[in-house]
C-alpha cells in the first residue's frame, strides 16, 4: 500500500468567503484534514475563517487564525516545521500563496514538500500562454486567439479566424473590455473603441452558443486516471459556469461525445502531471464533435465540490489520500465500503445546480450575467426527471419562487431579456412560453439546447392542464401523480387548481397534501450510492422523488432520531456560520444517543457530507418536504434554531402541524419575530426600544417622520439581512426607498423607526434553558450603529463599553429569556448611547456570530444549546468574559471587485459575503490580523484621505497625526485638507475626479501612488454616481485597500502604527 513517511502536514485554507471562493473549500479542507488524520499525520491548518467547520476542534491538530499570505505562512512554517504542504484544498487563495512561497524559495528553505500535484504543473495551468502551448504539444485544441496592436492587424486576425469573433482588451474596467463582432464592420468599430484606451487587444474566435461541459478528473501517482463526473451547463458558453444552471451528468451528449471529451481529459491530466484532482472545462460545438479546452483548474474547485455531492464520490478525501501516496485502486469506495475507489460513479438520477444571486443588495450593479461571476451561493436539486430537479432547485434558491411556474413575475421585454440574460432569465423563459413563444424561438434567442427547453415546456403544458382543472376532486390520479413527477409542489398545485386567496394559501396547500396522501401519491426516499444500485451500499445520502414505487431504506418507529434543519443556499446574510451551527448540533445529537438527521441542499457545505449525520436528506427545506420526511422518520423532534432564518420561518408552520419542535417554543419564536408582539412585550418588561411604527400609507409615514425627525430607518417585516432596509435622511429619499420596500413584500406593511446616530451597537449571543440564562457572550461593534451587524467589525470580549452598560444588557437579556421561556440559542442586538440601552433586534435562534464567540470563548454555544434542546440538565456556565486574556476580532469580507459598478459603501443593508475572526493580545493586534486577513495591506508610502462629514474628520485627527509621525505622506481632498490644516496636520491637496487638475485623486489611485484610500460617505444613504463614488469604485477596481467608515479607519490606522508586522504574534488557537 502507498504508506507514507509524512509526519506533519500544513494545509492552507481559503480565508473568508467571497464571490468565486465560498463554502466549498470548507468542505474540501475538512475532508482532506480527516483523510490525513486517519493516516496518523499531524495536521496544521492556517485559515482565518473562524466560522468554518474545518477550524473547529478535532479536525486539524492545530489551527492558526492568520492571514493566508506568504509572510504569515512562512512564519508558521518556521515554527511548525511541517514536512509537507497541501495547496489544492484552499481555492485560488491557497494556490496563489503556494506559488508565491515556491517562487520565493521558502518551501525549499524549510524543506517542505508540496504534496499532490507538483507546483510546476499548477503554474503551467495558471499561465494562459504556457497552458495553451502545453496543450498544443499533445494536439489538444484551445480557443484560437491572436494578440494585435493595430486596427489593420485586428482586421487581418478577424479574417484569419473567421467571424464571428470576440475582442478582448487586457485592461478592463466595468466590463467594457470585451465585445462580440459578427463581421468586419463591427470589428472595425469595436476595435477602434478598444484602441482608444489600450494598446493591445486579443482577437479571439467566438464560441458563443457552444455547449459548456466540465469533467472532474483524478489521477494517482501510478498514472491511473478516472473522471468522476461530467456536468453540462444549461446556459451555453458565454455565461460563467458559476452563473450557469448546471446538470450532472450531461444530458444532451451522445456516448461518442461524452467519451471523446473524457478521453481528452485524461490525456490532458496526464500531460500536465496532476496528482490528485483537477477540473477541465470544454466548449463543444452543438452541430458537430468539434471542441475547445477552455480552462483547467489544477485544484479542488467549486465544480469539484458539486461533483462530489452530485455523485457521492468524496473527491477531496480521495485527493488527499492520493497526495499522501496512495493509488486509487488501493482505496475503498467510502460509500459502498466494499468496492474500490477506482471507478466512475454511475448516477441513477439527475442533479441540477442553480446559482443564487443577491444583486438587489447592491446599488448600481448590473443584473446581467456573463463571463464574470456574481452569484454568492448555489443549490443542488436531485430528481429522477429534469422537471422535478429544476423545479425543486428553483424553490431551493429561496427568493420566494415556487418552481418554474406559479410565480407572480412580469417581464416587459421578453425577447431582449432572453438574448441578454440577467439573474432572472430562467423565469423569463417561463414567461416566454406563457406568451406563446416556441421552443425554436427561445432557442434562437438563448442558444439553450432544445432538449432543456422541451422539458421546460412540459412543465408549462402541465401547468395549463392543472389550471383547466376546476377543483382538486376533478384532478385525476394520473395527472396529479404526473404533476408530482414533474416537480410541482403542493403550493403550485393549489395555486393552479384551487387558486385560493393569499391568506388561504396555507390551508389550501395542506388540502392538496391531505388529498394526495389519501390517494397514496407520496414521494419515496432513494439513496445516492455511486453505483446505481449495482452493489449494496450502506449509504446515508438520500433524496426524495415521485418517480418511484418503493423506499430504499427502512424506517424505525422509535422516536430516536432528531432532525436538524439546515441553512440552505449561501447568500448574503447567511452562510458558512450556520453550517457550523448545524454540524455542531448534529454532533451533539449523535453524542446524546440519537440518530442525527439533516435536511439541507447546499452542495458547498460540510453538513451535507456523507460522514456528518446518520441520515442526510439532500432535499428541500419547505414545509411540504419537511413534513414528508417527518411522516417517515417519526423523529423525537426537530431542531429549527441552528439553520438561520429558513428553518426559523418554518417553526410556527411545523408547530401548527403538530410537529415537535425542540427547544424554545415556536409560539415564543413568533413573539420575537412579530414586531408588534415583541414590542409590546418589551413595553411590559419596561425595556427601551427605538420608537417605531408599522405604517401602510404615505401620509401616515410622513406624519410619523415629522414627529420623530430624520434620519429614520425603514424596512419591511420578517427579514434576515435587511432586504430593502435603509436609512433615509430626507423626504425625497424616503419616497424613493418606500417604493423599493413595497416591491420586496406587498403583504407586509412598512416599518419606520427612529434612527439614533453615533450610538454603539452591542450584541449578546446566549443560551438559555427554560428561561434561565446559561451562558452568554457580549460583543461590540467597532462601527457606530447604521452599519449592518453582518458588515460590522466585531470585538469580543468588548473593550470599550461601560461596566454599567454590560450590567444592563445582562439584566435585559435575562428578562427576555425568562419572558419568552427560551430553551436554546438566541441573540439580541442593542444600541447603547450614554448608558442608555435600547433593544433593536432579538432572534431566538443561532446567530451569525455564534461560531466566532464560541471559538474565542472556547465554549461551543451550539453544543450547549443542543444539549438543552435534548432536555439535558445544564448548569449555568461560570466562565466570564473577564477571564479572557486576549481579544477576538471578527471582520467582514467584501466582494465588490466582482460586482462591477456596485458602490462599495456600507449601510444598514448587508453587503459582505464572508468574514474572518482573529485573536490578538489586545484589540489592535486582533484588528490588524483580521484586516490583513480580509485583504488589507499595511500601507508602505502614501494614503489618500477624503473624510466626509465633520464628525468623521474629527474621529480621524489622531489617526492622521499617527500616520504623519510614522512618515506617511497624506493626500487629502479639498475639504479634508482645509480641516486638517486647522489642526496643523500636513496634507497634500488631491483634486476631485471631475476636476481637470493634478494631482488628481483618480490618478493617484490608478497609478497606484497611494496604497490606502479612506473615503467616508457624506450621509447615511448610498450615494449617487458622484466624485466619492468614483474614488471608491476606482480603489476597488485597482485593488487599492479602501475603508469607508471613520471608526474602522481609525482603528486600523492606529493598529498598524502601533504594531510592526514582525511584532504580530504567531500563536495557534490552542495557545491562547
Amino acid at each position, binding site marked *: 500500500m502507498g504508506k507514507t513517511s509524512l509526519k506533519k502536514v500544513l494545509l492552507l485554507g481559503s480565508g473568508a468567503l467571497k464571490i468565486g471562493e465560498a463554502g466549498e473549500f470548507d468542505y474540501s479542507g475538512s475532508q482532506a484534514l480527516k483523510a490525513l488524520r486517519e493516516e496518523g499525520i499531524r495536521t496544521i491548518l492556517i485559515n482565518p475563517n473562524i466560522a468554518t467547520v474545518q477550524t473547529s476542534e478535532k479536525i486539524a491538530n492545530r489551527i492558526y487564525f492568520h492571514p493566508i499570505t506568504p509572510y504569515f505562512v512562512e512564519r508558521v512554517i518556521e515554527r511548525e516545521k511541517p514536512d509537507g504542504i497541501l495547496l489544492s484544498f484552499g481555492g485560488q487563495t491557497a494556490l496563489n500563496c503556494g506559488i508565491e512561497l515556491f517562487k520565493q524559495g521558502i518551501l525549499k528553505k524549510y524543506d517542505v514538500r508540496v504534496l499532490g500535484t507538483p507546483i510546476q504543473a499548477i503554474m503551467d495551468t495558471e499561465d494562459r500562454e504556457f497552458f495553451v502551448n502545453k496543450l498544443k504539444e499533445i494536439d489538444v485544441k484551445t480557443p484560437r486567439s491572436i494578440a494585435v496592436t493595430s486596427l489593420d492587424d485586428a482586421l487581418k486576425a478577424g479574417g484569419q479566424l473567421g467571424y464571428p469573433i470576440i475582442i478582448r482588451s487586457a485592461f478592463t474596467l466595468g466590463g467594457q473590455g470585451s465585445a462580440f463582432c459578427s463581421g468586419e464592420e463591427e470589428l472595425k468599430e469595436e476595435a477602434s473603441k478598444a484602441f482608444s484606451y489600450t494598446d493591445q487587444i486579443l482577437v479571439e474566435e467566438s464560441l458563443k452558443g457552444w455547449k459548456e461541459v466540465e469533467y472532474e478528473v483524478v489521477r494517482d501517482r*501510478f*498514472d*491511473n*486516471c*478516472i473522471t468522476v463526473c461530467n456536468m453540462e451547463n444549461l446556459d451555453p458558453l458565454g455565461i460563467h459556469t458559476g452563473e450557469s444552471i448546471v446538470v450532472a*451528468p*450531461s*444530458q*444532451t*451528449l*451522445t*456516448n*461518442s461525445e*461524452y*467519451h471523446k471529451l*473524457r*478521453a481528452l481529459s*485524461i490525456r490532458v491530466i496526464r500531460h500536465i502531471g496532476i496528482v490528485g484532482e483537477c477540473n477541465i472545462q470544454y466548449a463543444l460545438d*452543438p*452541430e*458537430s464533435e468539434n471542441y475547445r479546452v477552455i480552462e483547467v483548474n489544477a485544484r479542488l474547485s467549486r465544480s469539484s465540490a458539486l461533483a462530489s455531492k452530485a455523485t457521492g464520490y468524496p473527491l477531496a478525501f480521495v485527493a488527499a489520500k492520493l497526495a499522501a501516496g496512495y*493509488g*486509487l*485502486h488501493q482505496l475503498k469506495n467510502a460509500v459502498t465500503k*466494499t*468496492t*474500490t475507489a*477506482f*471507478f*466512475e*460513479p*454511475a*448516477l*441513477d*438520477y*439527475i442533479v441540477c445546480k442553480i446559482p443564487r444571486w443577491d444583486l438587489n443588495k447592491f446599488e448600481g450593479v448590473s443584473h446581467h450575467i456573463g463571463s464574470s461571476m456574481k452569484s454568492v451561493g448555489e443549490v443542488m436539486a436531485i430528481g*429522477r*426527471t*429534469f422537471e422535478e430537479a429544476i423545479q425543486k432547485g428553483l424553490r431551493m434558491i429561496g427568493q420566494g419562487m415556487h418552481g418554474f411556474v406559479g410565480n407572480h413575475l412580469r417581464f416587459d421585454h421578453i425577447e431582449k431579456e432572453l438574448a441578454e440574460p440577467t439573474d432572472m432569465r430562467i423565469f423569463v423563459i417561463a414567461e416566454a412560453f406563457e406568451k406563446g413563444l416556441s421552443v425554436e424561438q427561445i432557442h434562437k434567442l438563448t442558444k439553450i439546447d432544445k*432538449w432543456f427547453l*422541451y*422539458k421546460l415546456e*412540459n412543465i408549462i*403544458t402541465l401547468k395549463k*392542464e392543472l389550471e383547466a382543472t376546476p377543483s382538486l376532486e376533478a384532478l385525476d390520479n*394520473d395527472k396529479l401523480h*404526473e404533476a408530482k*413527477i414533474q416537480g410541482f409542489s403542493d403550493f403550485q398545485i393549489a395555486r393552479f387548481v384551487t387558486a385560493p386567496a393569499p391568506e388561504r394559501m396555507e390551508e389550501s396547500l395542506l388540502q392538496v397534501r391531505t388529498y394526495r396522501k389519501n390517494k397514496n401519491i407520496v414521494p*419515496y426516499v432513494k439513496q445516492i450510492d455511486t*453505483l*446505481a*444500485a*449495482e*452493489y*449494496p451500499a450502506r449509504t446515508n445520502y438520500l433524496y426524495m422523488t415521485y*418517480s*418511484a*414505487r*418503493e423506499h*430504499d431504506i427502512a424506517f424505525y418507529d422509535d422516536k430516536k432520531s432528531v432532525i436538524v434543519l439546515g441553512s440552505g443556499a449561501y447568500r448574503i446574510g447567511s452562510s458558512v456560520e450556520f453550517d457550523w451551527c448545524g454540524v455542531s448540533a448534529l454532533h451533539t445529537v449523535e453524542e446524546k444517543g440519537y440518530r442525527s438527521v439533516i435536511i439541507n441542499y447546499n452542495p458547498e457545505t460540510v453538513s451535507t457530507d456523507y460522514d456528518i449525520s446518520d441520515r442526510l436528506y439532500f432535499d428541500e427545506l419547505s414545509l411540504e418536504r419537511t413534513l414528508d420526511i417527518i411522516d417517515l422518520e417519526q423523529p423525537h423532534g426537530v431542531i429549527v434554531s441552528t439553520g438561520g432564518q429558513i428553518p426559523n420561518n418554518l417553526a410556527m408552520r411545523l408547530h401548527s402541524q403538530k410537529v415537535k419542535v425542540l427547544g424554545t417554543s415556536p409560539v415564543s419564536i413568533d413573539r420575537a419575530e412579530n414586531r408588534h408582539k415583541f414590542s409590546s412585550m418589551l413595553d411590559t418588561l419596561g425595556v427601551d426600544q427605538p420608537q417605531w411604527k408599522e405604517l401602510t400609507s404615505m401620509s401616515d409615514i410622513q406624519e410619523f417622520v415629522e414627529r420623530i425627525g430624520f434620519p429614520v430607518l425603514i424596512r419591511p417585516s420578517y427579514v434576515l439581512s435587511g432586504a430593502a432596509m435603509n436609512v433615509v435622511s430626507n423626504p425625497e429619499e424616503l419616497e424613493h426607498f418606500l417604493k423599493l420596500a413595497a416591491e420586496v413584500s406587498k403583504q407586509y406593511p412598512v416599518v419606520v423607526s427612529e434612527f439614533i446616530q453615533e450610538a454603539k451597537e452591542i450584541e449578546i449571543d446566549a443560551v438559555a434553558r427554560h428561561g434561565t440564562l446559561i451562558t452568554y457572550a457580549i460583543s461590540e461593534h467597532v462601527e457606530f450603529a447604521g452599519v449592518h451587524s453582518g458588515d460590522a467589525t466585531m470585538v469580543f470580549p468588548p473593550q470599550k463599553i461601560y461596566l454599567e452598560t454590560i450590567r444592563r444588557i445582562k439584566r435585559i437579556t435575562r428578562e427576555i429569556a425568562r419572558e419568552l421561556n427560551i430553551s436554546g440559542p438566541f441573540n439580541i442586538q442593542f444600541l447603547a448611547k450614554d448608558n442608555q440601552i435600547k433593544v433593536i433586534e432579538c432572534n431566538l435562534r443561532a446567530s451569525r456570530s455564534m461560531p466566532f464567540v464560541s471559538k474565542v470563548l472556547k465554549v461551543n454555544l451550539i453544543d450547549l444549546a443542543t444539549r438543552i434542546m435534548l432536555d439535558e440538565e445544564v448548569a449555568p456556565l461560570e466562565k466570564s468574559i473577564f477571564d479572557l486574556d486576549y481579544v477576538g476580532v471578527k471582520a467582514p469580507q467584501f466582494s465588490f471587485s466582482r460586482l462591477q459598478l456596485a458602490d462599495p459603501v456600507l449601510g444598514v443593508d448587508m453587503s459582505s459575503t464572508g468574514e474572518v475572526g482573529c485573536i490578538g493580545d489586545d484589540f489592535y493586534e486582533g484588528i490588524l490580523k483580521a484586516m490583513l486577513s480580509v485583504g488589507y495591506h499595511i500601507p508602505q508610502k502614501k494614503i489618500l484621505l477624503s473624510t466626509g462629514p465633520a464628525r468623521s474628520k474629527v474621529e480621524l485627527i489622531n489617526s492622521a497625526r499617527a500616520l504623519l509621525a510614522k512618515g506617511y505622506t497624506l493626500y487629502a481632498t479639498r475639504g479634508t485638507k482645509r480641516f486638517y490644516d486647522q489642526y496643523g496636520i500636513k496634507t497634500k491637496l488631491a483634486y476631485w475626479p471631475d476636476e481637470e487638475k493634478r494631482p488628481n485623486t483618480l490618478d493617484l489611485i490608478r497609478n497606484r501612488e497611494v496604497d490606502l484610500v479612506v473615503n467616508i460617505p457624506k450621509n447615511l444613504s448610498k450615494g449617487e454616481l458622484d466624485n466619492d463614488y468614483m474614488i471608491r469604485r476606482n480603489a476597488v477596481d485597482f485593488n487599492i485597500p479602501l475603508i469607508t467608515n471613520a471608526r474602522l479607519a481609525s482603528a486600523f490606522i492606529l493598529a498598524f502604527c502601533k504594531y510592526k508586522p514582525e511584532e504580530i504574534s504567531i500563536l495557534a488557537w490552542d495557545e491562547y
Partner: protein
Amino acid sequence: MNSLSARKAKLILEDGTVMEGKSFGYEKSVSGEIVFNTAMTGYPESLTDPSYKGQILVLTYPLIGNYGAPQEEMENDLLKFHESNRIHIQALVVSDYSFQYSHWNARDSLAQWLKDNKVPGIFGIDTRALTKKLREKGTMLGKIVFDHDDVDFYDPSRENLVAQVSCTKKHVYGNGKYKILLLDCGVKYNIIRYLLQRDTTVIRVPWNHPIRTEEYDGLFLSNGPGDPKLCTDTIKNLTEVIRQDIPVFGICLGNQLLSLAAGADTYKLKYGHRSHNQPVLEVGTDKAYITAQNHGYAVDNDTLPEEWEPLFININDSTNEGMRHKTKPFFSTQFHPEASGGPTDTAYLFDVFVDTVAQYKGISQ
C-alpha cells in the same frame, strides 16, 4: 404524444412481481431475460449490441431518449453510428422517456426507432427498485404485457443465440496490411472499425466457420450473447487454433470461448456486469483501467490450465477480466476495449494485438 396519453403496459417478473408502466415503443407483448445496465450514455450502442440478444434491457439511468436515434450513414460497409444492423434487445425498460429529443446527429426519436424495429419500450418504471431486485435475486425472466395479450416466459440462455446473431456468410472489410480473421459470434461494429484503423483487412466469418480453411495473420474472437458452452462448434475449432502460434485476441464471449477451448470452465454470474464503469487491474501491476462491460457469464480463474494466466481481474469482485497464454501470442479480455459505448482507455489493446500480429508476420515471412 406525451406521458399522460401513453398506453399502459405491465412488466411482469418470473417471481410474480408486477410493475405498471407506459408504452413508448412498439405495442406487442414480449418476454426474455431481464438485465440492467448502469451506463449513463450510449443507449443506441446498447440497443444494437448483439450481446443483448434475447434480453429485456433495463437502463438505470432514468432520462432516456434525449438525443434521439442516430443517422443511418454508412462507412466502410458498416452503419457509422450503430453497433450492428438492427436492434437486438427484446424490449427496453426506462424510468423517464424523453418524448422530445435534440441532437445534430439524430435521425428520429428513440420511440420511432423502436417502433420501426418492432421493439417494445416502457417507461414510468421504478428502475432502481427493479435493479435492486435483480441484484438481490439474480437475473430473472420477465415479460412486457399489453392488456390481455399475455405471452409465456422465455429463457434465451437455453438457446444458441450466437447462431442467431452471427453473420451467415463471409464478408471482407478494408484492404490493410494485416489479415485478421474475425470470428463473428455477434460482433460489435466498433471492433471492426478499430481493426480497420490499424492497417488491417478484416475477414468476417460466421461463428462456426472452419477456421483452418482460412489463411490469416491474426484471429479475432468477437463478443456475443448467451452461454458460451452452447457454442460447441466454435470451442472445437478453437482447440485446434491454440495448438498453433498465430496471434489470437478475444473479447467478452471471445474470452470465454478461448478459455473453454483451453480447458478452463465458465459459470453464470448472479446478475452480470453491464456498465461503463467496471474497474480492472492488470495482474501483477498497479495499472488500473475503467472498462465497459456486458456479460452474464465469467471465466473461473481457478480452472485456468497451467500454461495460461489471468491478465486482468475485476477490482470489485475479483472475477476474471482476461487471460493470456504464458508463451504463445494469445490473449483475451472479458471487458470491451472497443468501448462504444463506454470508456476507451483500453483501446490500446488493439494496438497490442496488431503489433503482435505484425511481429508474428515478420517472423513467419
